[in-house]
């Protein structure tokens, strides 16, 4: 340690609490088969982008058990309604996508930022590098965000996204999906994933969806149609809960 670092540690005021041993929570390590392997032959872009050396086990210490608690200053109510962001009504099937963010102990994860992005109804992203010859919708950007409430609940109003070709192999089409990005409450809980729709005939053909080895885990990427969430004369409802890593061992609140 440098003298400077020693001075900085010494400069932290010492209270009774701080002389006690540091006790930190630890987070569950995901079971094998839940997350996709980084090297997956069916998804071409992984070939030059996956590390080949074994990962080094990182214990969960202060930097890992804490994490950014972001959001309220970033968010407006309108951010969760993707159908009213551009003045006019977008084309396509209006849907409500709602659910809870939980940890694997079933506890809600409140006040956490949820960010989503998706194609429009025609399967086109609003992105400069997107070349799919499907129309852009002047009334749809495909961007949303919200903060979970005290019960871990989130809710978006959007448009049913479309399928699109992606060039990974002959006649490759991505099933309709919505990208989700979540923080949870700790660095260990960070998750970026995709939500799919039930009954999509492209799912069995999609290497990205099928990169998840465990069948049950893979099915958890598919939302459930929900007639209770569906609003009469207005929008279909899809329910999707997102489960982040929970704490294992003794929990200190």
């Amino acid at each position, binding site marked *: 340690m440098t003298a400077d670092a020693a001075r900085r540690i010494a400069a932290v005021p010492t209270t009774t609490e701080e002389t006690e041993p*540091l006790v*930190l929570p630890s987070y569950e390590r995901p079971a094998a088969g*839940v997350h996709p392997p980084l090297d997956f032959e069916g998804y071409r872009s992984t070939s*030059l982008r996956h590390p080949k050396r074994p990962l080094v086990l990182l214990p969960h*210490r202060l930097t890992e058990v804490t994490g950014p608690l972001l959001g309220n200053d*970033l968010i407006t109510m309108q951010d969760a309604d993707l159908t009213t962001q551009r003045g006019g009504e977008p084309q396509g099937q209006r849907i409500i996508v709602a659910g809870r963010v939980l940890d694997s102990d079933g506890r809600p994860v409140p006040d956490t930022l949820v960010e989503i992005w998706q194609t429009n109804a025609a399967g086109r992203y609003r992105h400069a590098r*997107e070349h799919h010859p499907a129309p852009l919708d002047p009334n749809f950007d495909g961007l949303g965000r919200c903060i979970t409430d005290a019960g871990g609940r989130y809710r978006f109003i959007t448009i049913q996204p479309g399928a699109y070709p992606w060039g990974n192999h002959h006649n490759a089409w991505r099933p309709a999906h919505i990208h989700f990005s979540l923080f949870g409450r700790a660095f260990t809980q960070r998750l*970026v994933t995709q939500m799919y729709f039930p009954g999509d005939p492209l799912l069995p053909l999609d290497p990205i969806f099928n990169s998840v080895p465990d069948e049950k885990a893979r099915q*958890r990427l598919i939302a459930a149609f929900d007639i209770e969430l569906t609003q009469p004369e207005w929008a279909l409802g899809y329910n999707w809960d997102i489960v982040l890593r*929970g704490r294992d061992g003794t929990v200190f609140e």
Partner: protein
Amino acid sequence: MTGLTPSQTVGPYFAMRLPWPDGPYVVPEGTPGAVVIVGRVYDGAGNTIPDALIETWQADPDGRFAHPHDPRGASPSGYREFRGFGRCETSPDGSYRIVTLKPGPLPTPEGDIEAPHLDVSVFARGLLDRVVTRMYFPDELAANAADPVLSTVERARRSTLVAVAEPEGHLRFDIRLQGRHETVFFDI
């Protein structure tokens, strides 16, 4: 136990949503004592990756976190504009840039001291899950030598985790996803 939701790739179009105008600024540009971290992300062929997202998370200069899981609580000296979190998408030349304050050393439950470091996540098309690495500081030779994480890494590969001081005063932290000088990534 409820089953975890699997990870899926961030894909090529995350830049629609995830970059924030102030994302790269853990502290505002020009904050006294700010350090600028720059780097490029490379694939296994040595080509730069123009569609990666870098996220950083770190302690404040006193080695503390304004977070309920840090039992010591926020730093009493207060770093008002410091948010600990940085996010920057790579440019067409594969480069990213983060403006931050150097974190302090950190105590561990085992009674060790971790050298100042940033936890770094990399997301990209072709990465089905994020990969996680750490950035350590080149002016902390003794602290790095005593760091309980660095000491678990094969000696020949440790240098991939330490930034390089550049003449302009920047710190350079290049990330190689694959190849001869592949960065050390962690199982978290």
